[in-house]
């Protein structure tokens, strides 16, 4: 189709608008020259420059020109379309034009910011404007499509972030499916005794939220469950969830725990996961007293009945509600949701990877998470800080940055370790009266009340030694060191190598992505940063969105975060999800691919290549069919189609070739 055929009323009438962007562009590109050049190009009716084209007066100028000069094509040469394409398309719409008769030329990121010579920059800007003029002539009017949105939300992960997001949405009247892999919600926060810097009891502030989840009519809570498949797109996700058998019927169990008392094992003898193996449990157990849901479960790995088929099964008799079901099978649930919030959390760094710190070799070297359990009143020692042999430590060393800020492992700062180390130092000193030594590289305490807490610890007489610890050893030189663990460190403030003998070493392990983050990333079709944390859409302006519409992030799965930050992000993610589903529909960009039916030979090449499963095969007509709602406009099928049947709106051959010719003709 020729350009003038589209517009019998005199053909294309183009306006070109070149932005100074303050000095961002004008400091390098001769904007005036570009404007004068644009005026010489075919079909250009008007060309102007302005200091900030995105400002209200700039927009108004374009709107006026559209009306006055009867413009039917607009080009803005300014910044990246990622920033202002939507702005200027709206300008066209407001002036009564189809918003897709617009082309943006990026002369900032692509020209002024990256070109050293002003002459070259100006020439490049002119070439790009010439290309856009040629292209926009071949633009066609397009319509955005509206797709209805499902009213439900899936929250994956039941730590504090997932809990907060779920409650926010449920309180707003939306139905939430909260899926948690462990038998209880609560996440890492449930393991802590106190929270920094206020030292309020973690359980006291967390468990009310946990019970609120269990009681909320708008929340379907599935613990001991995992998402196994995600299909669909923003507003219309189909999700499959595997619910692992706990061998106890959740609806019947009231959490009286009589079955646990009745178990043929009189003593708890198996390492208890929730206490990181520091405590013991029976094969039938509940992770901790406030576990939510308060439902027991049976571990088939340790239960005699599952292992041998021979057991009196005293638990069955003990349960008055007949809730125990040894025949229970896993169940697959299928749900449809409009939005998904990922709050899958983190794992702590495996301290065994630094053998010189002796974790796993010396029994009195602990990770910080283990010490959290030791200081917890509901933990294996009832809150008393005791070594594995029962002694109370008199001297304790806390080593910071274990696995963080270390180019061998993770270069990043884990953000929470300085503060939780201070908290543990305080609690250990309070419970044992021990001398506590912190070995740090830099103290990082930005946050409300954090620096004050650090100051408080200094007042309390906790020792701070600046230097990365070289090793923890049982190599004693002096009689005082006998039987102790010796921390060898260069004290970089006084320039001396020191040996600090202690009874207990606490490794402040850093935060890492969950071990299966990569599989989860693939399942939800989102991206990871190079550290392996889920990647937000924009580090500053879209911190809870992902590159997949309708999927949001909350908490430490996006990067190391403390509780206040996780909760804040969870609230933001809930708000974003709410804004999406509350509207009731989503508008899809029309830059999708389509099939010219007469040309399609039915070779199916495109179907296997489509990364979004947007193409299916119509067996009756023997042609490929593209689901526009699923198509992301990546263009893979367009490039691959051997017969030229797959095409794409806004990326038509004519448009692209004209753009190329525009550059070449100028150069």
């Amino acid at each position, binding site marked *: 189709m020729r350009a003038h055929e589209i517009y019998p009323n005199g053909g294309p009438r183009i306006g070109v608008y070149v932005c100074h962007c303050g000095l961002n562009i004008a400091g390098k590109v001769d904007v005036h020259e570009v404007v004068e050049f644009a005026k010489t190009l075919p079909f250009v009716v008007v060309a102007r420059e302005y200091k900030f084209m995105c400002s209200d007066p700039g927009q108004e100028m374009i709107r006026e020109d559209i009306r006055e000069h009867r413009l039917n094509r607009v080009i803005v040469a300014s910044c990246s379309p990622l920033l202002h394409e939507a702005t200027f398309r709206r300008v066209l719409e407001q002036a009564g034009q189809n918003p897709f008769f617009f082309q943006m030329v990026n002369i900032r990121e692509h020209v002024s910011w990256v070109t050293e010579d002003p002459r070259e920059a100006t020439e490049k800007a002119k070439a790009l404007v010439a290309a856009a003029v040629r292209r926009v002539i071949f633009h066609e009017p397009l319509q955005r499509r509206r797709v209805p949105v499902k009213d439900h939300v899936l929250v994956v992960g039941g730590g504090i972030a997932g809990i907060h997001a779920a409650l926010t949405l449920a309180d707003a009247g939306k139905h939430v499916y909260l899926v948690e892999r462990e038998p209880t919600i609560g996440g890492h926060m449930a393991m802590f005794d106190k929270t920094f810097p206020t030292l309020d009891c973690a359980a006291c502030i967390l468990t009310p939220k946990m019970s609120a989840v269990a009681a909320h009519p708008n929340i379907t809570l599935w613990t001991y469950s995992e998402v196994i498949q995600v299909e669909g797109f923003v507003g219309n996700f189909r999700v499959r969830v595997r619910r692992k058998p706990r061998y106890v019927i959740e609806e019947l169990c009231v959490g009286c725990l009589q079955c646990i008392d009745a178990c043929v094992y009189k003593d708890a003898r198996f390492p208890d996961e929730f206490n990181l193996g520091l405590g013991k449990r029976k094969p039938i157990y509940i992770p901790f007293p406030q576990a939510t849901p308060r439902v027991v479960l049976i571990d088939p790995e340790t239960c005699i009945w599952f292992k041998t088929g021979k057991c009196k099964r005293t638990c069955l008799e003990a349960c008055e509600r007949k809730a125990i079901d040894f025949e229970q099978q896993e169940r697959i649930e299928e749900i449809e949701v409009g939005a998904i919030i990922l709050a899958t959390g983190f794992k702590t760094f495996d301290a065994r990877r*630094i*053998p*010189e710190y002796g974790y796993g070799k010396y029994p009195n070297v602990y990770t910080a998470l283990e010490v959290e359990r030791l200081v917890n009143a509901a933990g294996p020692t009832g809150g008393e800080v005791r070594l594995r042999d029962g002694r109370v430590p008199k001297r304790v060393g806390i080593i910071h940055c274990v696995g963080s800020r270390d180019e061998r492992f993770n270069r990043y700062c884990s953000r929470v370790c300085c503060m939780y180390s201070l908290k543990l130092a305080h609690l250990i000193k309070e419970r044992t009266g021990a001398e506590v030594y912190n070995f740090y590289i830099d103290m990082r305490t930005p946050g409300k009340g954090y620096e004050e807490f650090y100051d408080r610890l200094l007042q309390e007489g906790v020792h701070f030694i600046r230097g990365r610890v070289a*090793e923890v*050893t*049982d*190599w004693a*030189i002096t009689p005082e060191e006998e039987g102790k663990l010796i921390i060898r460190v260069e004290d970089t403030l006084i320039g001396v190598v020191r040996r600090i003998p202690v009874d207990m070493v606490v490794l402040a392990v850093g935060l890492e992505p969950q071990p299966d983050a990569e599989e989860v990333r693939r399942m939800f079709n989102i991206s990871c940063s190079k550290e392996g944390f889920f990647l937000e859409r924009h580090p500053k302006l879209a911190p809870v969105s992902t590159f997949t519409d309708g999927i949001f992030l909350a908490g430490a799965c996006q990067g190391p975060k403390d509780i206040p930050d996780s909760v804040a992000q969870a609230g933001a993610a809930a708000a974003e999800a709410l804004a999406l589903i509350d509207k009731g529909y989503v508008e899809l960009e029309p830059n999708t691919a389509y099939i010219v039916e007469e040309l399609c030979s039915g070779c199916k090449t495109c179907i296997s290549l489509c990364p979004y499963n947007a193409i299916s095969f119509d067996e009756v007509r023997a042609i490929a069919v593209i689901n526009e709602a699923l198509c992301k406009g990546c263009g893979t099928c367009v490039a691959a189609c051997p017969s030229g049947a797959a095409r794409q709106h806004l990326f038509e051959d004519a448009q692209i070739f004209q753009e190329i010719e525009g550059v070449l003709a100028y150069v």
Partner: protein
Amino acid sequence: MSYLYFPGCSLKGTGRAYEESLLAVFRALGIPLTELADWNCCGATAYMSIDEHQAFALAARNLALAESQGSPADGAVQLIAPCSACYLVLLKAQQCLAADIALCQEITIALKEEGHCYRGRVRIRHPLDVLVHDVGLSEIARHVRQPLRGLKIACYYGCQIVRPFALFDRPHDPSTMDDLVRILGAEPVSWPLKTHCCGGSLTGTIPEVGWRLNYLLLREAQRRGAHLIVTVCPLCQFNLEAYQDQIRQRYPDLAPMPVLYFTQLIGMAMGLPPRELGLQRLLIPVDGLMAALSKEGAHARA
């Protein structure tokens, strides 16, 4: 696989027993070792800190010689450097040349003056790596004639063969020598000082400091119940063994502790004649200990 062998100056001087035992063990295992012809000083760590470029040229000359004399296996000539300093310096030179094109060109021009050329096709190996990973522990076990039963050993790796280039073992907690010692029938003691510093040249420059470092190593080995220390490095061996009298004058709690090269220990287990292993060169002899052990063993058997 055939190997070229770069002795370095130590193995021709204070470390002669290292060379003798290394050659004897490889001979007995049937692995040909050819000494690199016309080799020169590796430059050691000292030269590196005075003039890096000349030090690199010195090291690169040896690598160029290896390339022209060796027959490549898997695309590279295998060059064994038993001395820890030589091993580290050659490796460092190789890695720096590979990483820095300008430096590499400079060194190439320098080598060309003398008609040499280095293309980066040398694999620098430590004999411990070769014995454990190429030959294999089971093959060595097959050659053990007199298992060293009852012998408790502190395996001393020193700092240079595992750091900064940890090519065949863990940098802070290496275990290859411990595995090897176990195969020979002896028992490696748990000893946290495996890679701690022996003081290097400090024994010559600031003896008080150097001797104290060696005292700490020796004393801890003694406390852990080791009968002897086994090492891979001529300088470590010299420091630990040669100064024991002086150390004892300051720290009288120190008993004499033999310090052997790991190749000597392998040779002993293989039943090779003591003179071939240079055992007569030890300042703190090991035969009394061995006699006591075998008597004890005989006693236990009876």
